[in-house]
């Protein structure tokens, strides 16, 4: 969303915005415009909401608005609020250590935190999330030296948290933990490869009603996911109930050595699944 953003260079920012002022500045600084993506009467309320959330997640660390370090693409009006696609783009990828996705008005707003490892190509990520109500969505990038940069979009999607997963819980949990990997974009040796990971998992959030028994299905959701190439980490993901049923995550990595690509997933009920994937021959 093209809203006015101000950008200080690093030196100047350090001088004029001491860390001690921290998040308190967000409400008053140029960040205000960025952080309240809709400019109408509720803008202030949404900005206040973000200030509270930012304090919960980042403490008193300052979040600088950015158009260059992280971009967030999501449909302005999602067709299905239970699986809204989100694309995060980090053009200056060598600077990025981790990224946070915050869906402001979801009951559990911190949807995902990706921390990149040495085998990552942190230029882009795609995932699907649940959206409970029309909301601001924030993406925050953390640089290698621990600074935070944020961007925001407003999305019109609603009802994604209570939408039933499947006709029955048995159907929803069938094959839980099965994974597939699709290599969508190959390159020469030493160059980045894009891959899409699909995990079979209902990611029950505890707000979905069993259509037969009319009871709420107990929560069971993926809380940790780790992807490596050989012994080298690509990323760790911490998540909870805002990830969609059957999560799909697209990421890039630089294959070095012989692999394999290794995925380890755990969920809130102590489920643990691990699977290795070999790269297609043509890519090696």
């Amino acid at each position, binding site marked *: 969303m093209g809203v006015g953003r101000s950008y200080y260079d690093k030196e100047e920012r350090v001088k004029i915005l001491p860390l001690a002022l921290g998040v308190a500045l967000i409400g008053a600084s140029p960040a205000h415009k960025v952080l309240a993506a809709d400019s*109408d*009467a*509720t803008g202030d*309320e949404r900005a206040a*909401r973000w200030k*509270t*959330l930012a304090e*919960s*997640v980042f403490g008193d660390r300052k979040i600088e608005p950015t158009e260059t370090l992280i971009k967030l693409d999501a449909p302005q009006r999602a067709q299905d609020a239970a699986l809204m696609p989100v694309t995060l783009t980090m053009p200056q990828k060598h600077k990025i250590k981790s990224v946070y996705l915050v869906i402001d*008005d979801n*009951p*559990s*707003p*911190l949807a995902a935190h990706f921390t990149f490892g040495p085998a990552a190509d942190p230029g882009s990520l795609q995932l699907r999330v649940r959206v*409970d*109500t*029309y909301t601001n969505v924030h993406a925050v990038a953390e640089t290698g030296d621990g600074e935070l940069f944020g961007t925001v979009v407003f999305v*019109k999607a*609603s*009802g994604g*948290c*209570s939408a*039933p997963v499947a006709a029955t819980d048995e159907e929803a949990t069938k094959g839980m933990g099965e994974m597939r990997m699709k290599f969508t974009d190959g390159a020469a040796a030493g160059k980045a490869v894009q891959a899409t990971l699909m995990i079979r998992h209902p990611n029950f*959030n*505890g*707000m979905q*009603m069993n*259509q037969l028994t*009319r009871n*709420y299905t*107990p*929560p069971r*959701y993926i*809380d940790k996911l780790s992807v490596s190439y050989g012994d080298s980490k690509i990323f760790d993901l911490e998540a*909870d*109930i805002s990830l969609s049923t059957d999560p799909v995550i697209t990421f890039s990595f630089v294959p070095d050595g012989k692999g394999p690509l290794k995925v380890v997933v755990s969920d*809130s009920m102590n489920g643990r699944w691990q699977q290795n994937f070999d790269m297609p021959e043509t890519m090696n």
Partner: protein
Amino acid sequence: MCALIERAAKAAIILTTALLAAVANAGSAGDVAEPQGLWIGGMHGPTPKMLSGAVVVDLAAIEALMAEKPLLLDVGPVARKPENFPSDRPWQPIHRSIPNAIWMPGAGAAPLDAGREELFYRRIEELTQGDKAKPIVVFCRPDCWAGWNAGKRLVTKGYTSVRWFPAGTDGWQDERETAEVKPDAEWIAAPTK
């Protein structure tokens, strides 16, 4: 070649439109009959088009009614925190509704504990200052029986100007600004069973 693509695109659009129409029909399930009394099934699902004794309203009708300062009664659900949710992750539910709405989550449940049902009627009586003819707009989310049930309770209790807004908070936020509302203090303070 271009013409061919164009034709294919048109065909695709027509097909998609037809599919969407089919899905929409299946989703709203056409005619859901009004139950005799309260609906005691699952709260989420297609609802009837009618609520006998009440008027079904859309957004324009609510806005036309605003001058009469209706009681805006939101019975939408409260977010359920998963058990064992990690304490180091933020759990900060927010409820957005029609500005100035009174939010009584769970007031459309059926059956409702006798004490809570009594509290519901008492709160409504207080909020309408005992005026049974005061306009009340009751709503929830779309496909939500709680809104229908709450309206049914009010009609049965003798309220004569009950409006049911089936599009609910989703229908409102589509066109108008919402405001954060907290649950009605007395309603939420009472013990639930």
